[in-house]
């Protein structure tokens, strides 16, 4: 499959079902050295993709989980003043107190830049952060370098990391940000695709069970007023639960009964709605 001489071509990984379209986009982004921005509802495998790329290209994966309160500096480096203060006071460590660079710790982006080999850098849920963070971060990723002010040193990326950015589409990203990324929207998998995903996770899954589960699953997703729709992860856990139950009766699912509803719906409000709308209350 993997042609020799083309080590940086993404082909999919053992636990990830990749569609052609997405594979092409990933490859183009790697070749153009552009960050790839992935949007899509939760459970469409945005985060999994980065793991799959790292696995398939045999590169280490560095994950930056973005938080709403995060400052760009946290992602680049940290100057550990407290340890330095402590060292200077007690002097019982091997660190050289006058050498500030001993107290600089790399953040996730810093680690990706400083790494000896090429890495996959996953910036997860970028939309949580504020706009300034996003724009500033892309500046850094554009130039592939940043300054450490305390020691007046510039960190330059030795190897340009493969950058995957995910967004849950909670709010629109700014235009300059979008301008610097390649973009793809991952749609929720259709039943056919979902069947393939199930196959990867359960190679020995029987056709009847898969069919019944998928049918029930897509029906559940259609219920009105559900806050958190069950996604791929829930489906996989659900199938796992069904298979683990020795008393499980396939007929029941085919007849519209849904055992282990709690695996699929994580909120009590949703669960009540689901029970109401599934039409066949369990006796």
């Amino acid at each position, binding site marked *: 499959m993997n042609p020799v001489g083309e080590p940086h071509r993404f082909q999919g990984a053992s636990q990830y079902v990749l*569609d*052609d*379209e997405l594979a*092409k*986009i990933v*490859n*183009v*982004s790697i*070749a*153009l050295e*552009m960050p*790839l*921005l992935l*949007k899509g509802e939760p459970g469409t495998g945005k985060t999994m993709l980065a793991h799959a790329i790292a696995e398939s290209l045999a590169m280490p994966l560095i994950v930056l989980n973005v938080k*709403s309160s995060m400052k760009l500096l946290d992602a680049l480096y940290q100057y550990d*003043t*407290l340890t330095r*203060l*402590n060292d200077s*006071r007690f002097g019982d460590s091997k660190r050289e107190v006058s050498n500030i660079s001993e107290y600089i710790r790399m953040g996730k982006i810093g680690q990706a830049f400083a790494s000896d080999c090429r890495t996959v850098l996953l910036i997860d849920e970028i939309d949580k952060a504020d706009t300034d963070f996003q724009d500033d971060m892309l500046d850094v990723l554009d130039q592939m370098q940043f300054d450490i002010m305390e020691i007046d040193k510039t960190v330059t990326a030795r190897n340009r990391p493969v950058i995957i950015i995910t967004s*849950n*589409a*909670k*709010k*629109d990203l700014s*235009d300059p940000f*979008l*301008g610097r*990324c*390649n*973009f*793809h*929207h991952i*749609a*929720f*998998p*259709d*039943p*056919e*695709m979902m069947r393939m995903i199930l196959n990867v996770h359960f190679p020995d899954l029987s056709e009847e069970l898969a069919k019944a589960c998928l049918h029930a699953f*897509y029906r559940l*997703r*259609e*219920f*009105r*007023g559900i*806050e958190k729709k069950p996604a791929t992860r829930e489906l996989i856990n659900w199938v796992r639960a069904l298979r683990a139950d020795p008393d499980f009766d396939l007929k029941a699912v085919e007849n519209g009964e849904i055992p282990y509803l709690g695996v699929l719906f994580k909120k009590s*409000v949703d669960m009540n709605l689901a029970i109401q709308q599934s039409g066949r209350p369990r006796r």
Partner: protein
Amino acid sequence: MFIRFFYMLREKGVPVTPTSFLRLQKALALGLIGSVDDFYTAARSILVKSERYFDTYDQVFAHHFKGATFEEITDVELTDVAKALLEEWLKRPKELAEALGLDENKLAQYTPEELLRYFLDRLKEQKEAHHGGNRWIGTGGTSPVGHSGNHPGGMRVGGASRNKSAVKVAMERRYRDYSQEGPLTELQMGEALKRLRRMIPHGPRDVVNVDKTITETMRNGGEISIVFDRRLSDRLKVILMIDNGGWSMDPYIEIVQTLFNYARSQFKDLKIYYFHNTVYSRVWLDPQRHLRPEAVEEFTRRDPDTRLIIVGDAAMAPSELRWANGSIYVGETERRSSEDRLKFLTQTFRHAVWLNPQAEASWNYTWTIEVIGKIFPMFELTLDGLDKAVQHLMKRH
């Protein structure tokens, strides 16, 4: 290369930038694009930055590379036509089953929505056939599942593009449903509400306060004394009152509830009350407004920093608002008018707003809206209005 394609995208309203176009040229120069299929995916990921424009992109692509015409008949028209036809046919299920090429038993399993969708898909194929083109794929399929890849809310699912050429994929217009001009979704509103917060120290003391540590250390004659603080977190109390009385409010109740439930985790305390048209001596904790009443006077015992948000159309008969006995509930006697009650609420809670689902332009035509608008700062129940309301709620008074 492809300059015409680029300008056609611009013309059709896709915001493509020259920079991204140059980047596409670079991709071409690097030999990354070997076929039309590659071009379709690569150009889309490089040029188009939002799924909202995917549908337009598909159309331009199909037009440019195959000469497909732009669709003229709109979905809305189709839906109306289809609904009318369907209703007619539902009276004679057998005929309908025949027309759709379905088993009558199978037909019975469908919900009306599913049926309409299925029917619409078939109808579109027929339209195309009439126009003499066989460009649209998937005509022969009678399988209800395989063909109409739709899921709830009418969102069309774009799956993998296995074994299809790019032009065909483009003509499938998988992203049609993303192209609607962004309606208010719960996610968006939740985002607006997120600004409604007040950071106060909370939880264990596990954050070092550097300034205080330095001061304390100096005071201590150089002996290090580290000062810890509580983490800042958002602990805002919110009271939400929803008018769930009249039919005029029906479309909004669900979204408002979902919205605030969604944001519930970030508030220390969120209480939802219900009322009908306006507030008298009581509001209710249960939507039926019957079982769990709470007297308005009781609210004085609440934290006055609680944010009060009232959602209602504020439209009612003037008497309901002005007279002490104006309540629409026969047999209930009130000592004070609703107007007084509302004033009482704004006096109790400094931070209060009224969200009105009616368009602001129409407010002037309803007398009660004007009166209530003078008591409460009133905002439209739109993303914009919500934003303004949140700003108002966070103002220091």
